[in-house]
């Protein structure tokens, strides 16, 4: 008996917290998404799939999905391409490289709000460094965060700047796992650097690339802090990404039913992506459970 009791007590705190603050909320979110919740009267009415149907027909939600998709497309490929380039430059274990990696990695672990504030200043129309630079080069200044045509891309650029270091570190680990003898052999055969990259690096880096692709799509789909601080979803809702749409529904309009439908839809979509990663894309799930 004691053989089971003691280990059970060991896992109990962890499982209790996860049960109360992750498993119960998932269940409760499903429940709420099927109800019309009126906070003022404390009434909850079962409405079946109505919240989901309303959402599917809601122009505002469509716009949010389109905005988020644009954000993902604007940031993810750029992020991965720049990170791979930097990883190639800094893959060797030299002291100088370690310092340089730190420079690129620092924004990833820095305070997101502080970064959003600093970049809001850089994007400032009248005094920001970006417009000053453009002006000095003879270009015409932009209204970056106050123009519905540019605000989303400005936020996406900050997201690239902040997340780049993470991708770079993962790429470096992937590159270092490739056996140097392969490059050595290719070099002897007179293969150009570009050819080596295409025939050795890219194929062997594919699992890393796919992993980063899925991870970065998943986290870009959930962008919120940068948007909330830099633009509040504006101007004219041009940066109203899905989580911001959810936030407004849940915590401004207090419409918990519809808000839960939004996150359930997001959850199922991201779960699909994760399954795609583990399944179709051929990454082995090996938790080695023996």
């Amino acid at each position, binding site marked *: 008996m004691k053989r089971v009791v*003691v280990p059970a007590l060991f896992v109990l*705190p962890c499982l209790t917290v996860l049960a109360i603050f992750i498993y119960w*909320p998932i269940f409760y979110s499903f429940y709420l998404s099927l109800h019309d919740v009126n906070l003022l009267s404390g009434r909850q009415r079962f409405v079946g799939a109505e919240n989901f149907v309303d959402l599917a027909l809601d122009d505002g939600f469509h716009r949010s999905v389109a905005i988020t998709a644009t954000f993902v497309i604007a940031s993810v490929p750029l992020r991965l391409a720049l990170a791979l380039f930097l990883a190639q430059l800094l893959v060797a274990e030299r002291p100088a490289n370690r310092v340089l990696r730190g420079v690129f990695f620092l924004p990833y672990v820095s*305070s997101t709000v502080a970064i959003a*504030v600093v970049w809001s200043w850089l994007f400032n129309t009248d005094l920001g460094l970006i417009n000053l630079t453009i002006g000095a080069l003879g270009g015409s200044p932009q209204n970056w965060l106050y123009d519905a045509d540019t605000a989303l891309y400005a936020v996406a650029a900050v997201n690239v700047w902040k997340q780049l270091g993470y991708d770079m570190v993962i790429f470096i680990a992937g590159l270092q796992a490739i056996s140097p003898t392969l490059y050595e052999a290719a070099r002897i055969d007179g293969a150009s650097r570009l050819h080596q990259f295409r025939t050795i690096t890219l194929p062997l880096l594919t699992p890393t690339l796919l992993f980063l692709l899925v991870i970065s799509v998943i986290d870009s789909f959930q962008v919120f802090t940068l948007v909330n601080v830099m633009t509040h979803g504006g101007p004219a809702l041009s940066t109203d990404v899905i989580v911001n749409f959810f936030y407004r529904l849940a915590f401004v309009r207090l419409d918990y039913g519809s808000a839960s439908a939004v996150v359930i839809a997001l959850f199922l979509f991201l779960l699909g992506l994760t399954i795609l990663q583990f399944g179709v894309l051929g990454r082995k799930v090996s938790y080695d459970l023996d």
Partner: protein
Amino acid sequence: MTLIDLRVAARQTVRERPRLSIPWATVVAIPLAVLFAVPMLYAVYVSLLDQSDLMSATPDFWPPNIDNYLTAWSEHPFARYFFNSIIVCGAITIGSMITSIMAAYVFARVDMPGRNILFMAVVATLMVPTHITLVPNYLTMAGFGLRNTYWALILPFLASGFAAFFLRQHFKTIPKEVEEAAKLDGAGHWRLLWTIIVPMSRPAIAAIAVFIFLSEWNSYIWPLIVTDTDDMRTVEIGLARLFAEEQEGGINNWPMIMAAAVTILIPPTIVFFFAERYLVSGITMGGNR
């Protein structure tokens, strides 16, 4: 052995470690790194200016002016925000490390019926986006009257599927033999864990602890939802509010705003400098999960 293999072998004996990249790669990277660091450096520079210098073509930088820092800290309760963030991040880091270490120990080293199912239940939480938990957790906290308390900020994060998973993978690599002597002495699980397994896993534990601390320092949407008093706000929320107020009020004292942002960037930067090695190993392992 083909001819190429032989040639490779010959080359390698001459040059011990074949270089993966050419030296000029580092040289190319230096200007890029400088460019990359401009936003942070510029923020520090602006935080040391007078507001009147902002408009001037030739700002009078010297001597640097630390008034902005004093203003940010005296006119806004940043000391309180910092205190709150440190309490909350500290409690979460310590608490979630303890629950994760204990769970990981069982998942890695103890035979128990149902262990694998419980482990899968813990790992599955890694796939759950935070946002799905926000409304229910908010209602739970509001229901117990815990809005604007440390409890609300801390409790939901006292366990971490990622930490439990990561530590389990690590604990599994420790050979069984190391426990034998202690077992002969009659040590139970509790003593085995804390006197043998944990001391042998310090780097892994440090990696996870740093990782958790930094992500909690960054935490935004949850504290935004469960706090609405200055007494309970964390640094992230405090800075976001200061920024929003300055913009709404049309004051835009940018040097003071930058000073506030820079102070909030200092703790993560310090942690980063001291723990980069651990942090990178933790993230790379997370990347290979």
